[in-house]
């Protein structure tokens, strides 16, 4: 449907088009073969960004504009809209040259043919390997990574101290002993379900969503069927609304944060983005790795964010120049971290910022984590997966519900 807007907009867009033709004008630049900054006057790079990252990109863009004479046009968009808009607009030629994005979009973007491969050259070694892997699809790198994010166990130190519980039982015992109204609270996104937040517990039963091959790439083989998945499902039912009640569909994101912040819950599982809400009422927190529920290591999803280059960019050379020489630098990466503190993908900055105990906690959790699958099939997983978890939490028969979900999923993926 969005494509439609473009069709209609052809008339309106003319204004811009003609203005660009008349105003831009390619003035031949004075020759300078020196390998210094390029002269890109008259070239306009369009970059899509979300509100959080805008100031940091603005800083890098300002340097770039100053040194090259190019114009960088930052378009602020809602992060969640970028994926669909980028996929739909790039083929029409209306998309940006560069966009910010998450690594789990990659499979879909490759399928749509809208992203260009990227070669970071020698700078690649400066990034955490997991970040580069996340942005690689079928052995090709497609984006410049800049931050990692993951979820971890957040505990109220006034209630349960700083020690990390190793297992679910230990955690619930400590939480109950603290006298808090609830030992533990977790977001299920209400009736929608939140398999993302639940994934650490699921992997501790050895039931990954897709099986990884030897090189760490995800295959399309669903890994959560069989006994391991059934064991997780049974556990989920046991802790659900008809069981111990630790996990409940009445808890959505805001309720979860409110319960923890007001001291009514001792532990929760959240990401760095929620720390502000969790500590808003003065709770002291410690961030620890997620405890194991099924015996194995609890591995939450690690998400990586970075910058994609459009396959239809008309200024591919300039865009590459901007990405590799202006954004893939320590200063620019630090500015991005300061604008929106997420775990940096740039190794040395990551070490540097681990001085902050909260960040260090999330870094530790990410080291247990696995990259979220970036294969296009991942797009078909969430709906069925979330819904099955909600049904089990609400008391449906765990094993049969889970098996049906896995069968439906396998049928959908084909």
């Amino acid at each position, binding site marked *: *449907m969005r494509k439609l807007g473009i069709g209609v907009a052809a008339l309106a867009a003319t204004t811009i088009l003609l203005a660009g033709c008349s105003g831009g004008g390619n003035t031949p630049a004075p020759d300078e*073969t020196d390998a210094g900054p390029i002269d890109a006057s008259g070239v306009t790079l369009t970059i899509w960004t979300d509100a959080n990252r805008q100031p940091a990109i603005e800083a890098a863009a300002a340097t770039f504009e100053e040194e090259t004479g190019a114009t960088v046009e930052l378009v602020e968009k809602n992060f969640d809209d970028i994926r669909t808009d980028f996929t739909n607009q790039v083929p029409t030629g209306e998309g940006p040259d560069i966009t910010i994005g998450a690594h789990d979009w990659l499979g879909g973007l490759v399928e749509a043919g809208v992203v260009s491969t990227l070669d970071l050259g020698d700078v690649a070694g400066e990034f955490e390997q997991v970040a580069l892997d996340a942005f690689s699809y079928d052995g090709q790198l497609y984006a410049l990574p800049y931050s990692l994010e993951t979820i971890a166990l957040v505990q109220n130190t006034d209630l349960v101290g700083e020690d990390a519980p190793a297992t679910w039982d230990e955690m619930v015992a400590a939480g109950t002993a603290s006298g808090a109204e609830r030992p533990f609270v977790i977001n299920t996104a209400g009736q*929608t379900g939140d398999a993302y937040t639940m994934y650490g517990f699921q992997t501790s039963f050895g039931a990954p969503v897709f099986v990884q091959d030897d090189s760490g790439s995800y295959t399309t083989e669903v890994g959560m069927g069989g006994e391991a998945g059934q064991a997780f499902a049974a556990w989920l039912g046991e802790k659900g609304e008809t069981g111990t009640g630790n996990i409940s569909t*009445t808890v959505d994101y805001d309720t979860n944060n409110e319960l923890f912040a007001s001291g009514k819950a001792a532990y929760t599982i959240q990401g760095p983005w929620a720390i502000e809400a969790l500590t808003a009422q003065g709770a002291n927190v410690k961030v620890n790795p997620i405890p194991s529920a099924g015996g194995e290591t609890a591995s939450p999803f690690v998400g990586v964010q970075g910058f994609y280059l459009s396959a239809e960019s008309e200024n591919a050379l300039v865009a590459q120049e901007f990405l590799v020489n202006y954004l893939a630098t320590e200063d620019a990466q630090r500015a991005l971290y300061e604008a929106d503190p997420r775990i940096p993908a740039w190794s040395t900055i990551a070490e540097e910022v681990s001085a902050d105990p909260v960040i260090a906690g999330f870094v530790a959790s990410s080291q247990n984590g696995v990259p979220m699958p970036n294969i296009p099939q991942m797009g078909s997983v969430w709906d069925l997966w979330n819904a099955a978890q909600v049904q089990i939490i609400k008391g449906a028969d765990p094993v049969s519900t889970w098996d049906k979900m896995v069968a439906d999923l396998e049928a959908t993926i084909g």
Partner: protein
Amino acid sequence: MSVPQGTIAADTTPPKAPLSPAPSKEPHGRDWRGLGWGFLVKLAIMAVINAFGLMGIVAAFRAEAWLIFAAAVLVLVAADIIYFTKRALPLKYLLPGLTFLLIFQVFIFGYTAYIAFTNYGAGHVGSQEQAVNAALSQGERRVEGSPSYPLTVIEQNGELGFAIVEDGEIKAGTADQPLQVVGDASGSGAATEVPGWNVVPRNTLISDPAMQDAVVELRVPISDDPNDGSIRTREGTTGAVYLSTMEWNPDAQTITDTATGTVYSATADGTFAAEDGTTLATGWTANVGFANFVRLFTDPDLFEPLGLVTVWTFAWAILSVLIPFAMGLVFAIIFNDERVKGRKILRTLFILPYAFPAFMSALLFRGMFNAEFGVINEFFFGGANIDWLGDPWLARGAVLFVNVWLTYPYYFLVCTGAIQALPADALEAASIDGAGRFRQLRSIILPLVLVATAPLLISSFAFSFNNFTIIYMFNNGGPAIPGAPYALGSTDILISAIWDISGVSGGKADYGLASALSILVFIVVGLISALAFRQTKKLEEYQ
């Protein structure tokens, strides 16, 4: 989307007739006798319209959008003829409205219909050409262990080439001519002078988009054997050896993977598929005929949940009209009685829910209906754990309750107006004839009120049928129907199901299927409205 919004006939060019001294019975357009101020204003406005129109025509021509081009030319020519001729007076008034109708209704409907016959969606967003380009670029990868070479773009007789520096030697070549040593490098950086070639300054390159494209596309083979790979650059200063394994054969419409020998042929449904069924990642938008419509009715995984959704949509739309209307009518009758004190204040209070933004009310009610933390269970059900949002039937009841709460004030307003407009003599005559209150209600008030409100009820039905806001904001269509694709839920109505299927909110997008469903919904709503309006004519005869 199928509720026809009133087209705003913004008549930008009122044909002004110059003031004529003698009043004339002729239409004023024919009364025009010369250049007046009105003509000058018209000329100025038409100049602006022509300027924008021409701009659009040029843009459409450049974008090779022939349909838009033709439509824009037609409309512009029509506008000029209509406004500069003395005839065609009705069209002078109608044209702006007709143009808006064309752009905002006909075009949108036509485009949706067009999408419904394609597989536009995840994996099928571009043209075949783009899919080929994507396959070629995805199939081209850096040769393992290949270092980055300092690179200079060079030119000879208009042909572009690359010069790289390797082991202190400058090697140069073009697309047809593999790299050859042409001299010794002075330093470790990129060559600043290449014997026998003109160095293309980087700034020239950057400011020339056509040349940029050519450089990005250029591959210079490193030896006579194509399997050794070729040099490519991405930013114009460094190059590396890449090897492409994909070959496109436009005549046979196949892509061959030279590494494995697999041949991928273009299929009718817009993918490159090999004989063993494996496909390349990127497909293109293809015309699939009635496949989307057929799938809606034959795919049991889709048909069953959609059947449920359809039944609920009708129930929802009918109940969302009948219950609030009944409530509004009852309250209107009660609060129209002169014996009720403070009627004005009470009436104002009744309107309040109608004055709240619907999406906000829906969000608030969502919180209030929360089984554990919501006030509804706490205050009205003694803290019972009633799962309003999780149980399919309770969720349907809850969302219906919210909608009734939101809409009954509207009917209260409408019915109050209709009742106050009732002919007092008819009611008086009825009571003299001995009709009781109930008889008066049934035989006089109700029919007369219905005559006035029936068109509103019909449009309300169409509105409720497509009332996305409440459904989406209250519970997002949930709770999910077990096993249903696209997260279709028990309170999803057709329009929110279309939203889920289209994938705009994430997940796997299928615009073709969503458009096909939109067309069906349009036809259903259109048919019902047409039938219902025919019925209202009978009501009017009753009067």
